[in-house]
């Protein structure tokens, strides 16, 4: 079914991490194959570069064709509305990343012909940081847009 197909695509795209994951799995370090995140390496990455690479992207470059929707300032870092979209064809994954979070990758959206390449969610941000929207194309190119989001905390300062 579709699910298995995606798994295969993903495996091809992220051969390296898949190999690592299967090694760990074989060694009994991962709970079960089904529960283990297929993209574990990407979600543990500490830099944008690493996360993109682990998600199958290469030659990362800035592009006007990728749109990041993010506020200039967030009243609270617990909930920061973030969106990623592109009008380009040939997009495989759309990623949202927060550079200064302990692990940079927030979410990966796997694009299909049945949906718009346009997704929105909300992220935690520990501090003010650059936020990245990355499109990973079918040919492996990674294109990004970025924006700085300032995080404040209001209230009584208690």
């Amino acid at each position, binding site marked *: 079914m579709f699910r298995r197909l995606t798994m295969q695509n993903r495996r091809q795209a992220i051969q390296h991490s898949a190999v690592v994951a299967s090694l760990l799995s074989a060694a009994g370090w991962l709970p079960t194959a089904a529960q283990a995140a297929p993209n574990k390496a990407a979600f543990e990455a500490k830099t944008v570069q690493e996360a993109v690479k682990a998600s199958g992207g290469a030659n990362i470059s800035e592009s006007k064709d990728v749109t990041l929707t993010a*506020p*200039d*300032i*967030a*009243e*609270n870092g*617990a*909930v920061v*509305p973030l969106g990623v979209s592109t009008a380009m064809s040939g997009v495989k994954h759309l990623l949202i990343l927060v550079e200064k979070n302990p692990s940079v990758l927030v979410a990966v959206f796997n694009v299909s012909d049945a949906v718009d390449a346009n997704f929105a969610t*909300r992220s935690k941000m520990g*501090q*003010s940081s650059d936020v990245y929207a990355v499109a990973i194309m079918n040919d492996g190119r990674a294109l990004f847009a970025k924006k700085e989001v*300032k*995080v*404040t*905390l*209001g*209230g*009584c*300062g*208690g």
Partner: protein
Amino acid sequence: MRQALIPVALAMVLGASPVLAQKTASQGIDEYRAMLQDGNPADLFEAKGEDLWKQKRGPKNASLEACDLGQGPGVIKGVFVSLPKYFADTGKVQDLESRLLTCMQTLQGFDPQAIAKTSFGSGEMANVTAMATWVAAESKGMKFNLSQSHAQERVMYEVGKRLFFMRGGTHDFSCASCHGEEGKRIRLQDLPLLTKNPGDGIGFAAWPAYRVSNGQMWGMQQRLNDCYRQQRFPFPGFASDATVALSVYLGVNAQGAASIAPAIKR
């Protein structure tokens, strides 16, 4: 943590001109708030509350569908904007949450004292908040119109007014210290004036609300509880007469304000 974050984050916004930067910061925060309006997680609690209301629960295995919130058994629409009010069966003025406790006791056989002692967000207390969220949502957009026809309702208003202006604790704060003048703020947080509409429409008429900062759903009781905590006051009992009296004062002051509850707040 908090204190450390504010200056760091805001120093970056500051740039060369503080006046300009400040305007930008508050505009930015308005934009941020607007982005959150669509998709308020209060919806989740609203759905849970409706479900709980209709479920057979408690020692008596009954639903709350026969509960009278002030407009007759089972009537939900419009009750939120008329509470607190006097109830003849209990002989008391009650707010939404204390009335829910009464119904949970009489219809379902729950122990209201035990629920009132439960911490916010856990056990049956979380269920009361969810049901209050649903009941409030059913009156969204309707205008506040509290009754002052019963003598006890008028007494509660007068007592509520005294509580609003009551200075105490280590810091001599009253509710009015922060909410008694128009156009004031704590740090960058705007403070609604709660002695009249429209200020009170933003303040009183917005709770229950989803708190973004901690991902919690708060009813009016928890809102007042946390105000009192920050006032350095002792702990107000859940559904205690003082909290109801204060709600009567705020609710009457909100006369004519359209309810925006359940809102989404910082």
